[in-house]
């Protein structure tokens, strides 16, 4: 029966020892150990979370980059297209201009030629008129110096006139 009867002395020492052990270990062992373990777990958790965040940010950045690249590409495309259009337009304009200028020049040239021609013609006319007068004068003078020939001429002329 002794075996199952708690002995007072041992209960006394057990309680005192256990309570002291509990408080000493709580203050000097469990708190620092559990604190350290928890801190480390927190650290791991936050490290994992930040890694996850970094990964997400990376993904975002990648997507951004992709987007920016896409935008840049389409912008380049647009720019190129515009440039091409401008080029075509410039060429067309230049052509038109050149055409216009050329035709204008041709016109002017023609006008110039025309006027030159007119002037030349006029001058030629004057010249021809002068020459004709001079010739006529010389011819007349020659003719008048010879009476017979004149009479002959008059006669031939009269003969022609009657024929008419």
């Amino acid at each position, binding site marked *: 029966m002794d075996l199952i009867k708690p002995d007072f002395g041992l209960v006394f020492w057990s*309680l005192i020892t256990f309570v002291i052990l509990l408080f000493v270990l709580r203050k000097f062992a469990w708190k620092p150990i559990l604190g350290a373990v928890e801190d480390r777990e927190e650290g791991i958790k936050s490290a994992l979370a930040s890694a996850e965040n970094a990964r997400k940010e990376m993904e975002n950045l990648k997507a951004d980059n992709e987007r920016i690249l896409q935008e840049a590409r389409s912008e380049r495309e647009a720019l190129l297209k515009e440039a091409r259009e401008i080029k075509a337009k410039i060429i067309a304009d230049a052509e038109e201009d050149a055409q216009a200028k050329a035709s204008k020049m041709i016109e002017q040239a023609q006008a110039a030629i025309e006027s030159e021609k007119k002037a030349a013609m006029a001058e030629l006319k004057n010249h021809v008129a002068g020459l004709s007068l001079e010739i006529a004068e010389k011819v007349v003078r020659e003719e008048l110096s010879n009476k017979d020939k004149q009479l002959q001429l008059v006669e031939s002329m009269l003969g022609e006139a009657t024929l008419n």
Partner: protein
Amino acid sequence: MTLNTFKSALFSVLFLTVSFFGYASEDAHSENKEEFNPKEMILHHVKDAYGMHIIDINGHPISIPLPIILYTDSGLTTFMSSEFHHDYNGEVVVEKDGQRFVNVHEKIYRLNDGETTVKYDAEHHPINAERPWDFSITRNVFMMWVSVIVLLFIFLTTAKQYKKSGNYVPKGIASFMEPLIVFVRDEIAKPMIGEHKYKRFMPYLLTVFFFIWINNIFGLIPILNGANLSGNIAFTFSLAFCTFLITTFSGNKHYWKHIFWMPGVPVPMKIFLMPIEIVGMFVKPISLMIRLFANITAGHIIILALMSLIFIFETIAVAPVSIAFSLFIGIIEIVVTAIQAYIFTVLSALYFGMATEEAH
């Protein structure tokens, strides 16, 4: 681990045997070949004692004397257990401060004034002596303090490791202890008490777990000669009492309502359940107390009984069988040390969890 287990089990057997041979020969020489009494021997090993008896050599017991502290009507009396000269049959009378003390089966009695020898009644109870208040440092108290020193050494070193390493990486002894501490936290405290409230109970659960475990292990070390602290009902009572106090004082409204006025059942049932629940309050810690005490003591008794077979049959031929079975039980006991510590802690945590549970 397996090797160590094997080694300690083997040593357990060897040392117990040495001790028994001594015991047997002492009986044979001094008590005229009195018959070997396994019951007395086993109880002597399982129960508390006033000295740390290590070994008998040629019938001369060698033991570490421990202080005896007694409180009587005339105040405190102290002397060393060696003054009884290893007698526990009430034959040696120690006189201190005008009082006479005898050791009857590891219980100290103070002889009534004027008496010089102890007299017994038919059931071998002293009739002319009384037990004083006994605060002696018995071998169980002594081993308890040794275990406390070991625990403090282990866990203060562990705590220091964390402080030293700065980045909270467990090193050295800490890497052995941390899995156990985390086990108590994640497998015992969190599931039993709940994620939000377990922190408050962690120091108690950890202390109880390691205190029981180390004393269970110490109980298996044979050279300490069955310092069977965790198989002593006084020790298990003390721990169970602490669990009871904590459960009772951390009980919330829901817990008390559950005991006195069970919600969700008809009124006659409420009245019927109330006494059951009140009894349950006390039965829970009592079951803790008995479970630990009975498991550890039973293990010790089995090993001792198996070894006693050699002396009951009085032939060495039984020894291999006894040793083989003791080895087997010894290995089981090593597992039981951890299991019982775990069960005590789990159930304590469960009771705390019940006490702090919120109404659902």
